[in-house]
């Protein structure tokens, strides 16, 4: 019986494919994509301010409010600036580390360094944000080390902590990119009389730019959607994520929250389209 079924399946590839895909498609395409579609559609609905009930009539008022509201433009700009700052900080920290790992460290040390860089990825997100809350808090390590000039909670702290959280995502692609760059290229550059700075500019940088862009996809997109770290170390700072959260919870305005949530998604899609030309997507 089982053998007959097996033989029948063997000759019917379409049936095998259907059996494989039925459950995942029902889950991902049916349930998840369906939920996303409803969310997108609900961005064009409104909420009755008196009853708090959804009014399912398509309108653009949410997007109009988004584009015209001074607050939303400020917050959207602040969010993008934060994500960009996080990406730059990460690239600056990651570049020398990745270069050391790929070109200076001996093979044995290299293995250990990779483990050391990857280890924090397994540590909890919340724990890491919490660690910085304690460090930056009044009388904490940052105060002690800087003799009372700690940045405290705020936008600077948010950038710092987000950069800390996503640093491994920047180190790994740069390391992979540098490892593919043959040592002979660096030697050739030196033989041709280039100094370190010139070699860096003309040989190393062109080789790592696609890797940096690949890393930036993670650091940028993860920062765009974040609202937890901001609550933990951001003081009163608000990013797009916080506004979305407030509109679902306290304001009970799901349509407006949905409209707000499209902002980071649209920015991210724009970013992906822009960097696709650089060939960075193949580095992922």
């Amino acid at each position, binding site marked *: 019986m089982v053998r007959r079924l097996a033989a029948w399946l063997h000759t019917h590839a379409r049936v095998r494919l259907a059996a494989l895909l039925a459950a995942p498609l029902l889950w991902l395409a049916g349930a998840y994509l369906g939920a*996303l579609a409803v969310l997108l559609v609900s961005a064009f609905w409104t909420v009755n301010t008196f009853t708090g009930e959804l009014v399912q009539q398509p309108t653009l008022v949410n997007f109009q409010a988004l584009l015209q509201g001074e607050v939303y433009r400020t917050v959207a700009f602040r969010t993008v600036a934060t994500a960009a700052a996080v990406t730059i900080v990460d690239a600056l920290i990651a570049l020398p580390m990745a270069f050391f790992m790929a070109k200076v460290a001996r093979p044995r040390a290299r293995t250990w360094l990779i483990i050391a860089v990857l280890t924090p990825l397994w540590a909890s997100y*919340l724990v890491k944000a919490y660690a910085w809350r304690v460090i930056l808090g009044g009388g904490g390590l940052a105060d002690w080390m800087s003799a009372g000039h700690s940045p405290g909670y705020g936008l600077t702290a948010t950038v710092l902590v987000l950069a800390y959280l996503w640093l491994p995502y920047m180190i790994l692609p740069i390391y992979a990119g540098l490892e593919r760059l043959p040592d002979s290229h660096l030697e050739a550059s030196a033989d041709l009389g280039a100094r370190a700075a010139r070699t860096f500019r003309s040989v190393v940088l062109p080789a790592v730019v696609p890797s940096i862009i690949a890393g930036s996809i993670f650091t940028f997109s993860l920062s765009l959607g974040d609202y937890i770290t901001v609550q933990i170390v951001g003081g009163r700072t608000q990013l797009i994520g916080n506004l979305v959260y407030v509109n679902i919870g306290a304001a009970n305005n*799901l349509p407006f929250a949905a409209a707000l949530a499209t902002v980071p998604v649209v920015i991210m899609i724009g970013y992906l389209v822009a960097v696709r030309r650089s060939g960075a997507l193949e580095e992922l």
Partner: protein
Amino acid sequence: VILSPMAKWCLRLGMALGLAFIYVPLAVVLVNSFNADRTFGWPPPGFTVKWWQAAWDSSGVRAALWTSVQAGLGAAAIALVLGSLVAFAVHRHRFFGRQALSLLVVLPIALPGIVTGIALDSAWRSVIAPLGLGKGLFSVIVGHATFCVVVVYNNVLARLRRTAPSLEEASADLGADTFQTFRHITFPLVRSALFAGGLLAFALSFDEIVVTTFTAGPSVQTLPIWIFNNLFRPNQAPVVNVVAAVLIVLSVIPIYLAQRLSSDSATTHR
């Protein structure tokens, strides 16, 4: 590479500073779990183990930990099934929408967590809640499984691409049917990839807070939710810190397992 001693020195310094940046905050949490000062003044005025005692006695922590383990196991189990199914379909078959399917699998983790969170939340409230199933542990597992599928899918697909189809053809030539080939040949080949994917899925679920916030019912508290709820309460701070310290120490386990796993597969493949 030939570098000037000066350049080498600068790079070494950059590496050391980078590692310090990564590890000092984690070390601070570990030290602070013994800090006698309630508000974690630095340097610590003295050391104590009473916070560890308090955390051990906290029923809230234990309940949250158990909830997180259940959610992680449930999400990993579902992700293992769905992720493997998609990986086999994509590897074995050519069909319309194959590229789109790979994109669909990545989407839940590529989109900001808050988008996935509110989408699932409103879908649950409008479709499933009317059927009488409110949000609870099950909705958390559903939410987590959705974004965990991709890690199992990636691991299994990568393994399938590396294994030679000749093994399965040989099995069929020797008279094994589809099921026997799967049990004796294919499954052993992908077993360690399944384990790695499952481990990663569990870790992702165990750490997730954003999707959990939107999919958990009011009575369900996973460990990250518990930490977040108690983070801003000064009198709970020492217990939160001990939990954080424990989580840092526990994060060594998956690294050890992953390392063992990669060295195992490295030796069997060569």
